[in-house]
């Protein structure tokens, strides 16, 4: 038996491990529903596994992987075309194109996100923890924070808005100073 296939697989697993996070973010921007995006990521992983022979290791992995992810997003769209909560094909195309253009800036924003997360108030920190780290259900969160559903989502919305504003300010001050 040749050791070649095993090492190819290992190589792919390594690349997937390293790039899973950006790949998920790419898919999520086109299909902003966590469950669907995860399914698509898994389909994409399998597709990459099947087509890995065609991958040229001298070239960057992510742009290559994005093409598969984009195809899986389209497949997903066709499968659930009747859902009124999916972006149209034209919009997905535009978003995918523009996202690749601004990817460096998006990555840069995330570097500031950690800093901004630390500046949150205690209650906001607890909201972030319970929503994202503990993945509590909406009902549990409503109970824990004694908020109505509407208030809870409104608070989450304001919180993410503040994070976004904070990151933008950080980037601007970086550019200006």
């Amino acid at each position: 038996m040749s050791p070649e296939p095993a090492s190819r697989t290992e190589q792919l697993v390594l690349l997937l491990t390293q790039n899973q996070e950006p790949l998920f973010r790419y898919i999520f921007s086109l299909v902003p529903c966590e469950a669907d995006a995860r399914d698509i990521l898994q389909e994409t992983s399998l597709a990459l596994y099947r087509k890995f022979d065609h991958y040229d290791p001298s070239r960057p992995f992510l742009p290559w992987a994005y093409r598969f992810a984009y195809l899986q997003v389209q497949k997903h769209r066709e499968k659930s075309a009747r859902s009124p909560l999916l972006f149209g094909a034209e919009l997905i195309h535009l978003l995918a194109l523009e996202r690749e253009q601004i990817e460096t800036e998006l990555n840069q924003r995330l570097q500031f996100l950690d800093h901004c997360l630390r500046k949150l108030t205690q209650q906001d920190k607890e909201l972030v923890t319970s929503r994202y780290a503990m993945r509590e259900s909406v009902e549990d969160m409503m109970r824990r924070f004694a908020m109505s559903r509407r208030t809870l989502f409104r608070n989450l919305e304001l919180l993410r808005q503040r994070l976004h504003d904070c990151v933008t300010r950080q980037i601007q001050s970086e550019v200006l100073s």
Partner: protein
Amino acid sequence: MNLESLIQAKLDGEITPEQHAELETLLRGNGRARRLYLELADQHARLLQQPPPLESTTQQTSGTSRTVRWRTAALVASAAAIVLLVFALRPYHAASREATSYGAAMLSQTLDAEFAQPTIRSGDTLAPGTLTLHKGVVQIEFFSGATALIEGSAQIEIISAWEARCISGRVRVHVPPAAKGFLMHAPGVKLEDLGTEFALNVAGQDSAVHVFDGEVIAHAKDKAPASLKAGMSLNSTKTAVSPADFLPIRELQTLIRQREKNRFEQWQQRSAGAGEDTRLIAYYPFKHWEDDNWDRMVNNLAQPVVYSRNGGAVGARWTQGRWPGKEALEFKRPGDRVRMNLDGTYAALTLACWVKVDSVDKKYNSLLLTDGYESGEPHWQIYEDGSLMFSIGYAAPGEKRITFKTNQTYYSQPVFTPDSLGRWHHLAVTYDNASGTVLQYFDGREVGREVSVLHQPGRPVVFGPCELGNWGLPTQGHRFPIRTLNGAIDEFAIYQSVLSPAELQTMFEQGKP
């Protein structure tokens, strides 16, 4: 909703198909909108993937098992890892469930009742369990159709819609044909009702039974089942029973009517005095004047009377309020409303009302709304999740309208649940422009306290043209959003100061039906 809110609703999965279509249009037509969307989506995706570490102050209870550990899965360096990836992260969905209530009976009438559980009120659904009545008389209607009249002191265990146990006290039971087979347990005896009316007296470990009408099978310990027919009694050596010991149902109804009359009279006296409170902007006790031929006046009785602050009913019909003889206006149809025009500029407010909400069936259900929504105008509504929603806004300098960024909205805990619908409740909200604190009350109890991050001290509160139970005069030819309250209002007071929690508690205690 503006672009940011639409994007956020989309990210939270809280978007409606209509809003989704709106978002899609905005994104397709505008590169800057897409840019904002991509940034917010990327930030959200990052938080989903790499949440910040758990805060030490946060208790970690139910969440641990659901915490996703990507890295661990990825460390398994083999082809199996890919398969693992496929199954590692099953999303969880909260299934939408049908609303449920848990109960076997309903507390349909009470008269001077005092319970061991002080929160019990007439109209409550009773779950299986023991009800301890210190004094007074109560009527319980089992969901099977059986009715029990209980005189305090007594202890009754509700087992199911078809079964109950009298631990002590006197009970009179009426069983219609539909509830035939209803079982009443008592010390030493089990009574199977075959469609009848009987009374039971339990003292210590002794039971006595008298049948007024129909037939009851008494299953006594160590004895053959005995049939008891109309007029027959089953007395024990120590406890006897005679029909005269039991309050006839008609008498209870007379007593209840008398009590309602007394409550109503007390309320009328207080109401006359309440109008003299100098803090009032307007006070509507919903008194229907016999000599008002047009039938549409909703009089303001705040003293001295400012005639221009009288209200006018549109559509809404007169109906019974908290007590027989007390009038209320019922809001049902999309046009139903009470129009008002309240002049003046204020530094604070209290809105307090008695309302019976039949259903929270719209996104926004009006209590009091000003016609437009301009700087300093309060809006008070019930939000679709059953919470009280108070809002006030001030347009940014140089702008005419209040936008998403300048609107201050305050929600209470959800208070309207299936168990609180269809009954009279006291609602109140207070706001002052110095501290910016908004306090909301339900039946005299605080259910919301918040200061908006947008609060700036000293900005005035105004009303102008406004209405109860609906929203806004539609401009000609325009469709209008339907925010009609589905229910009735029988008292509404508007003050220019913040009433204290104690005052609002008293208002509830004195006005409750």
